[in-house]
């Protein structure tokens, strides 16, 4: 194992903001953030539809607001084929709904509550994610 590209300060700063969002949403609106839940409920359920939509719009406004205040462009790199993008997207959408949570819902909100379900889910998707990258690198 070699460690590369390590940026603990920006990661920690971003994490603190994510934690702040989660706790404000709880204290003020009484709900725990889970993006897969918010997004799929927006698609499927009439309950809280406007709130869910506004949260998603907020997410999408985030990068522009960041760029406006910092003056820094955001660069991302995705190198998958169309087939893998679609396959990966369906797996993420279907999997997170089957298990009722994703990185935010289980990994942050659930673990904050000390939910055993969420701790097991988080360990499972982390381990499978690591194994998937290992296998992809070998193939």
């Amino acid at each position, binding site marked *: 194992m070699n460690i590369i590209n390590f940026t603990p300060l920006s990661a920690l700063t971003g994490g603190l903001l994510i934690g702040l969002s989660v706790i404000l949403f709880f204290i003020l609106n009484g709900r725990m953030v889970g993006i897969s839940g918010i997004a799929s409920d927006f698609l499927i359920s009439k309950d809280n539809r406007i709130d869910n939509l506004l949260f998603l719009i*907020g*997410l999408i406004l985030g990068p522009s607001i960041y760029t406006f205040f910092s003056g820094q462009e955001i660069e991302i790199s995705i190198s998958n084929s169309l087939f*893998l993008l679609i396959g990966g997207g369906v797996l993420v959408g279907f999997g997170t709904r089957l298990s009722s949570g994703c990185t935010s819902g289980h990994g942050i909100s659930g673990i904050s509550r000390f939910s055993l379900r969420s701790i097991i889910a988080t360990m499972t998707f982390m381990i499978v994610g690591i194994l998937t990258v290992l296998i992809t690198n070998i193939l």
Partner: protein
Amino acid sequence: MNKIVSLFCGIIFGIGLVISEMINPAKVLGFLNLFGEWDPSLAFVMIGALVVSTPLFHLFKNKEKPIFSSSFSISNKKEIDKKLIIGSILFGAGWGLVGLCPGPAITSIALLNMSSVTFVIAMFVGFYIAKLS
């Protein structure tokens, strides 16, 4: 008021994903590449988020009600079942293939990257299939 809170919390969450670079699939795949060239940064995203949310959650959970809403709504599921495990395995596989999970995927729509837009459409199809099944 809770509409404004929803928008504001979304914005803060989105900016957090940008600053931490969780929005960048290459960064996420670097984190998951534990057995190769490993970038441990994203562990600090989780630490940062949990350091804020965990103590404050336990401080406020026994309050009568949230400030702008009539009651708290928290999952009361306890069961460790097949759905939880199989769902998490499928999610982990998709996450490891592309490096996007739902929050960063939706946030990255702002960058008008065709790959991430394609991924998000497929993810919503996945939500819908889960609803049907």
